[in-house]
């Protein structure tokens, strides 16, 4: 059974991202504020630190669900940003290679509303720049962790995301004098190409109490590439005015960006208490402009017809941010049949968006995330189930601090505005050990 699962895992070596950056993966990690990279070992390690998979002891499957409900408003008006909700499935498979511990994991976040979402608005149009598209995405993460030395492991993962490029081809004759005589044939050519990014991590357990983790995630960006290619003759009556004229429009919109990330994590475990702390660096300064970049080419020679060059969006000048996280877990009950843990966590995510005093209106706020949760381990043993049945629940509250934007120009079409919000979410899962 394990080898079948391993084969499936390797064959399906693709993964997508990234609502996990927004909310996390799995109720235990969410309840601990995401501060788990130093000691995570179950399928959530595929996202938080793939090195932790090396220390998984048994084949484990997790089945869960997450619901995040945003309440985001500008000037007191709700923008009715969609919920992010979906099934979260995970599996971690232990093994060994050359007498070293090896673990492989796969996690899936499957939204039940939008499989994917693309929205590109004009730069001047206010929009929740990190919430419009980011949570609406299928995520499949696959990773492997290998114990290098006693207590030290290395993990690696690959992610593939779908990229969209499409061209509408129109060919034929354009009659300048009589539009009824214009004949154009249409064809659509759309490619779904892959974008790949890497994640890697280290996990070190020098003694039974202390654990350390280091995680790296490569940045990635998704673009919506749409083109219109019109080519053909321009005729007036029976005479050809332009032979093989061409009109090409290409629009490239950066619809999603996830920054390069480095996370350092430490945790201390002295039963019944476990405390974890984590500090992440996110390179948002490479955030590309989310506004569409439009290029137009018009070739009607020998006619001298020119089109104005469309304005190109400037860099949004986002800034790098640090995210501190802390999580506390307390084993409150331990009997032969049942264990119960209470959890709480906190993180602060400063907004990477600079002051929007100019023409752009990328809306984002500093975020305070507070979470609570509980975990139950029910001892079961049967022919197939060979370990505890775990039930985890978590509640997450992300408060987006009130932010006021004052425009520098009194004729700014949008003017001053205030934005704020909160996201409330719950997550639950059942874990089965085989």
């Amino acid at each position, binding site marked *: 059974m394990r080898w079948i699962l391993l084969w499936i895992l390797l064959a399906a070596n693709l993964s997508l991202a990234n609502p996990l950056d927004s909310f996390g993966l799995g109720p235990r990690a969410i309840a601990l504020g995401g501060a788990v990279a130093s000691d995570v070992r179950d399928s959530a390690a595929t996202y938080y630190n793939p090195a932790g998979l090396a220390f998984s002891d048994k084949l484990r499957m997790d*089945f869960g669900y997450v619901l995040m409900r945003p309440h985001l408003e500008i000037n007191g*008006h*709700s923008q009715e940003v*969609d919920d992010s909700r979906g*099934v979260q499935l995970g599996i971690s498979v232990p093994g060994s290679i050359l007498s070293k511990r090896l673990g492989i994991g796969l996690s899936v976040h499957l939204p039940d509303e939008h499989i994917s979402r693309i929205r590109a*608005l004009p730069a001047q149009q206010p929009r929740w720049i990190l919430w419009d598209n980011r949570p609406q995405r299928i995520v499949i993460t696959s990773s492997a962790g290998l114990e290098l030395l006693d207590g030290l492991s290395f993990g690696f993962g690959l992610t593939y995301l779908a990229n969209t490029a499409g061209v509408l081809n129109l060919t034929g004759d354009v009659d300048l004098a009589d539009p009824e005589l214009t004949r154009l044939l249409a064809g659509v050519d759309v490619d779904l190409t892959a974008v790949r990014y890497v994640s890697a991590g280290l996990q070190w357990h020098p003694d039974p109490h202390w654990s350390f983790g280091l995680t790296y995630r490569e940045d990635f960006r998704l673009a919506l590439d749409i083109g219109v290619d019109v080519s053909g003759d321009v005729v007036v009556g029976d005479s050809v005015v332009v032979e093989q004229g061409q009109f090409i429009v290409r629009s490239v919109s950066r619809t999603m960006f996830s920054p390069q990330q480095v996370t350092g994590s430490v945790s201390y475990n002295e039963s019944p208490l476990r405390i974890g702390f984590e500090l992440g660096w996110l390179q948002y300064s490479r955030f590309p402009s989310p506004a569409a970049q439009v290029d137009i080419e018009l070739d009607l020679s020998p006619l001298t017809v020119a089109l104005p060059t469309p304005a190109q969006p400037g860099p949004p000048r986002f800034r790098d941010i640090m995210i501190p996280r802390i999580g506390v877990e307390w084993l409150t009950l331990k009997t032969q049949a049942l264990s119960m843990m209470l959890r709480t966590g906190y993180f602060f995510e400063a907004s990477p968006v600079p002051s929007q005093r100019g023409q752009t209106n990328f809306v984002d706020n500093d975020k305070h995330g507070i979470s609570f949760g509980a975990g139950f381990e029910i001892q079961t043993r049967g022919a197939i189930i060979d370990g505890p049945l775990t039930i985890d629940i978590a509640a997450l509250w992300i408060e987006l601090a009130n932010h006021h934007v004052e425009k520098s120009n009194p004729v700014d*079409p949008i003017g*001053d*505005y*205030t934005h704020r919000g909160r996201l409330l979410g719950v997550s639950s899962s059942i874990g089965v050990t085989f």
Partner: protein
Amino acid sequence: MKRIALSLFFFVCCGCGTGGSSGGGAVALPSAGLGPYVWTDITVGNEKAPFGPEYGAPYAIGVDGEVWLYLRHCADATGCRIMMAKSTDGLHFDSPQVIATHPMGLDHPVVLKENDKIKLFAMSSARDAVLEFTGSKTGEFRFKRLLPIPSVTAPLLELSVVELGARQMFLFNTTAAPTEWRVFHDDDESVTAFVSELCGSACELSSWPSLVSFKLARSDRGRAILRALAVTDNNSGDNELNVYGSFDGYTWHAYENNPVLSTPADINRLTMATDSRRFFIYAELDTQERTIRGAIHESGVPSIIY
């Protein structure tokens, strides 16, 4: 195992549910609402007819999601008076009601709204005085006083009133010098030239034209902004409407999408307003059939309130 599998199936599939939505995130976003505008007919009364030639000098404000339109009405020998009509969509107005009369006759209304109180300023029919009325959102207006604007020897041409802090500032010009705008501050009762820097090199205007409507706008959650809606001739003989803005009344900037509207007709007066959803411009056009027309821009929620 079968029981567990069934439990998990129901947990994942039934407990979660699936739905779908229209794709939120762009609802009620602040609107880039200063144009371009499109002229549109506006109607009044049960017959939904255009405003007749007896109506003129429109001035509009947004009140609780409605547009209230104040007009000069000169129907009979009793002289001109001020009437007011309400609209829930900014395009069709209820039958106007008389809200202010005076033996001197009334013309060119200007309205300031302060919570439930409303101040009405109007020129006398001879345009040689400014009268102040006080009222509320629900009642008629009472005459309060004649404003002592000194040093005005020619009839007034245009008048705008803006309230900056505790000060009321009256901006006006006269028929004798239409492009020389002057300022009268209610608290010091002196008249001075309206010295302002207009757009610098970014603005084709070197000075204000004769027809300008100054109004205090406010961002929904922000600062007060002085807005000017000015009419200029273009080279083709059309009249163009241009929007300018200022935080201090001294330094003015031109809106990047100027002109926001144009018309071959002469314009006698114009005003700008918002309801909870759209931006409106109303103008008295000096056509053969003198009429009030509107112009509309709708997109999102107005972030600027007039």
